[in-house]
Structures are given as C-alpha cells and as structure tokens.
C-alpha cells in the first residue's frame, strides 16, 4: 500500500529503497546519541556528587572570601568576624547563616578503624532557618541534616553507608566521638559524602584539623545591595549555581566533560551533514528530473528535510532509549544522573544540529538545474 498524501513521497520511498545506507547512518546517529546521553548523564551524576550539598545550602546567595588576587575558592575561603558582622548589619539582609566546610575523615565507633573521607559541614540546624526556597525539610537538604547538640552529627545517606552506621551509633572525627542523630538523603561535596555538625562542633573540629575555626561561607537571605556589601566586606556574593565556579574540581571536571559533549554535538552535525550531502549529490540527477517534471524547489527541500528528520528521530530515539536503559543499569555503580536534562535536552540538541547539518545538503537541491535532465545519460 502506498502512502499517498505524505509530503515526503519520494523521500519515504528512498528510505525503503536504500534502507542499508539509512540504517547505517541511523545507527551512527544512535551511537552518537548514546555517547552524548551517557556523557551528559555522567556529567550530571559527577556534578551532583560534587556540588549537591552546596546547591542545598540555605539563603539567596552564598558569600565567599574575595582574595586580593584571583577568584574566590571554597577551599581557601575564611569569613572572619568583621565580614560576618558586615553582612549581618547590612540593610536589606534578612538572615545570615554561617557555614563551615572542610574535608576530613571519620571512623565508625570509638576506635580508629578504617577511615572514610567526609565533608564536614557546620551550620545551625534547619529549625533556626529555612533551606533555599523554604525547602529545609526536603531530603538531602544539608540544613535538615545539621544536629542541635554539639556531641551529635547528621549523616548523609552516602556517609552512613560508607561508615556502616545508623542513628544512635558513634562516629569518631579527629579523636572526638559523636552520636549519629539523623541519617538524611544524598548530599555530596567534592565527591565526598556530607557529615553535618553544629557550628561550634565544626569550629572545634576545624581547629583540630589545623584551621582557624571560622566559617568558610555565609548563606545570606534578603535583598541587600549585594555588590556594595561584598566590596565593603572583601567578599563575593553569588547565586548557588554561580558559586560553583569557586569549586576547582567542579570547574575542571564539568568543563572537560562539557567540552567532550560539545565536540560530540559537532561530530554529530558533521556526520549527518556529510551523509546527506553525499546522498543528495548522488540524487542530484533525480532532483533535476523532478524539477524538470514540475517539482517546486520548496517541495523538494521539504522532501529532503523530512527524510533527514525521519532518520534523526529514529536514530536519536534508539540512542536515547539505550541511554535510559544503560543509565538505569549504571545508576548503582556509577554517578549517573537520569533526568530530562541529561536525556531529552541532548536528544533535542542532536536533532537540531543534525537538521542543521542536513540543511547544508539543501544547496544541492536548490542549485539543481532541471535543464540537465534533458539529454542526461542516467
């Protein structure tokens, strides 16, 4: 049964006639989609393992120490008393939550058994302030992990799993033992699971680790003149997302993966463009005949783009399905984020870039001279 009425009359039949070639290019598109999707999922997963705790901090903006030269850094930042007071007394500021972040090691029980790397977060418990967007109770929110007593800690799910402890168990950090008050959802900082403490307990732990005990970040809520206050206090204030550039590992890791994804997008557009350019050049004689018979250039362009779209949709669909399947399987073993951001967005970008590549081939269609159909030996 023929498909009358379709706008891709010839293109549809070409797809069936030269199915080997189209299956080949569809497979290449599917493979590139799989690569892009997998990399995007991995990037998302790694990013989550790197920064989810930072994104979960309360406040409208995060304030870091502004060094005299160079960029602010989570690792180097120290917020002294003067800067803290500067922000607390600034007009328009509703709340300032000092947060201490330092990398440390913890062991389960009272002994010095095998140590697990953790990110020690010191901040007041969620009862004293709201999380970002008022979501303090959301699982994974660092604020909701923070205990109320100095001899307690709150563990993220990853920290509890790595330490093999549960609520009520003892955990030792730099020689001091704490009781696990709560176990929350996932919270990660620089690929280590988060362990939350009270500000005082964190200061003490920081000093034992060689620090000065001062908080490293301020989570500030309100609507002050951010730039003016930041300048006056020698700090920088940026959104939670914007602050991620102050995390060196995030910059280098995500930057590298994003570059690979961008290059794969480029490869995708080039491969699809090259295929359709060669394919359309091979069809140049047919295109000239169709024009001579009365085909409008517009209908031929639609035909060619429709053909490319069919190949792209099928190839990308197969590739995306493989990403979802493999991502679900890999979720337990790899830091993999399966979400519309890592599946649908790359798929749409692939389709758009593939069509852009195929559009390059349209020159052959628009330039084909129907006069060549006369006397042509085909």
């Amino acid at each position, binding site marked *: 049964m*023929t498909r*009358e*009425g*379709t*706008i891709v*009359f*010839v293109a549809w*039949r*070409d797809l*069936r*006639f*030269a199915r080997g070639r189209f299956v080949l290019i569809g497979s290449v598109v599917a493979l590139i989609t799989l690569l892009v999707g997998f990399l995007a999922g991995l990037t998302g997963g790694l990013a989550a393992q790197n920064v989810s705790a930072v994104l979960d901090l309360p406040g409208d903006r995060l304030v870091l120490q502004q060094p005299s030269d160079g960029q602010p850094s989570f690792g180097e930042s120290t917020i002294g008393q003067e800067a803290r007071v500067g922000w607390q007394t600034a007009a328009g500021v509703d709340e300032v939550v000092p947060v201490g972040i330092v990398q440390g090691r913890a062991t389960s029980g009272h002994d010095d058994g095998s140590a697990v790397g953790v990110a020690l977060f010191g901040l007041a418990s969620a009862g004293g302030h709201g999380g970002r967007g008022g979501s303090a109770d959301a699982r994974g929110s660092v604020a909701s992990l923070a205990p109320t007593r100095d001899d307690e800690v709150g563990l993220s799910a990853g920290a509890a799993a790595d330490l093999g402890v549960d609520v009520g168990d003892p955990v030792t950090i730099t020689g001091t033992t704490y009781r696990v008050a709560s176990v929350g959802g996932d919270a990660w900082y620089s690929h280590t699971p988060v362990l939350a403490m009270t500000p005082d307990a964190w200061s003490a732990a920081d000093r034992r680790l060689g620090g000065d005990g001062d908080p490293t970040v301020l989570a500030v809520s309100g609507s002050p003149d951010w730039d003016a206050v930041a300048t006056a206090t020698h700090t920088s204030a940026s959104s939670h997302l914007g602050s991620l550039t102050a995390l060196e590992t995030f910059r280098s890791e995500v930057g590298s993966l994003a570059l690979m994804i961008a290059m794969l997008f480029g490869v995708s557009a080039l491969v699809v463009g090259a295929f359709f350019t060669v394919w359309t050049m091979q069809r140049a*004689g*047919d295109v000239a*005949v*169709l*024009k*001579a*018979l*009365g*085909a*409008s*250039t*517009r*209908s031929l362009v*639609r035909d060619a783009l429709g053909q490319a779209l069919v190949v792209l949709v099928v190839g990308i669909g197969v590739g995306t399905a493989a990403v979802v399947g493999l991502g679900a399987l890999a979720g337990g073993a790899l830091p993999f984020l399966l979400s519309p951001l890592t599946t649908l967005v790359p798929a749409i970008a692939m389709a758009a870039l593939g069509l852009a590549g195929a559009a390059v081939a349209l020159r052959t269609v628009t330039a084909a001279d*129907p*006069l060549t*159909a*006369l*006397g*042509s*030996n*085909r």
Partner: protein
Amino acid sequence: MITLDDVTLTFPDGDRRVTAVDHVSLTARTGEVTGITGPSGSGKSSILAVAATLIQPDSGRVVITGARGDAVDAVDAAALSRDEATALRRERVGIVFQQSNLLPSLTAREQLLVMAHLGGPRAGRRSAAVRDRADDLIDAVGLSGHANKRPAQLSGGQRQRIAIARALVHEPEVLLVDEPTSALDQERGAAIMSLIAQLTHERGTATMLVTHDLVHRGALDSLVTVVDGRVVSDTATGDGRIAA
C-alpha cells in the same frame, strides 16, 4: 497547441555568444506529432528546452494554447517567472527524456503517482484522480503486469513506456519528447514511436518530438528540419502522415 514565435536563444561562449536557436517559428498542433530533426548541434534540443520552459529565450514567444473548461487559454511560457514556469510544466506540459530518467526508488506505478505530489501536499490531495489515470495509462502502454517493478527490473523499452505514461498522467496539453528511441533497438524504437503517435491522437495532445533518426518518421504527422539553429523546412502532409 504550442507555438514558438520568432524564438532566439544564445549561449555564452567565452567572450562571445553562440546562437543556438535563430528566429525559429513553428507550431505543434493538438492531436499531432510534430517531429523536429536535424544534424547534431543543429539546435533541436535547445528548441525543446525552450518549449519546455527549462530555459528562457533571448527573444520570441512560446505560446501554449489549450482548452480550460469552456474557454481557450493561451499563455506565453517565455514570459513566465521560474516558479510560474515550474507550475506550467507540472500542470500543462509532459516531458519524455532521451533516457527514461525514472527514479530508481519508485515502482513503475509510483513513477506516475509522483506527479500528483510535485507541487507539495496541496497537489497531493488530487492524487485520487491521478491514481485512476495511472492505472489506465500503465494498461495503455501495455505494462499492467509490471506496475510494481522498479526501473532496474524493467527493460529499456519498458522503462521508456513508463516514462511516456508518466508524461501523460497529469493530462498535459503539450507533450515534449527528446530522442525517445536513441537507447533502443530498431524494433523497440518503432514500438515506442507508434505508442507516442497513438496516445497523441487518442488524447489530443500537441506533441513535439526531437529525433535525429528518421527511420521511424512514419509515426510523425509533420516534420521540421533545423540546421544551425534555423528552420530550413517545415513539412506537413495533408492527412497527417509523412511518406516513409
């Protein structure tokens, strides 16, 4: 009917221009096969290209006259824009090429059906009538048993028959045929020429046929001879037949 009136066509050739068609006037009448012959390079294919609106002449008129309902409609094809010329070919002109120029991915029947889709989806809605005519024409050219075969599965003569059917499926007023027997042996060539003449007479098409081979001239109703871009003779017989 199609009339070329004082048509001149030149091509650039380095710094100068070469005259391919030199003040040519001729007419292909409705229901007749008008042959155009001449030696190689005489300009006969250029005349066909001008008649097909595939190239615009430097001067002169190409008038296609046909019945549109109860009225007679005449259009100067040489004065049309590129899009208008494309639409004219799609609706009022059929072309049979020297080679069959069938599309390799389409079956014989689909070669005809594609004519309903050349103007895009709106034209595609008229495909029901084209489907009926396609089946009739495939039958008329004697290939009803081959309708679902692709060009590679057909012989040269069969391909040319399908090309003729394709050129007629949209019921054009003018049929332009370029050396239809050049790739065929004499027997198959004679059959193709006979088929063109038969369909022309039956369907009332004004057929202009370019040929350098006068072996089959019995199928022509009149013959125009062209040398160096000029018409040197224009002979029509009283009963529409040229003596073999």
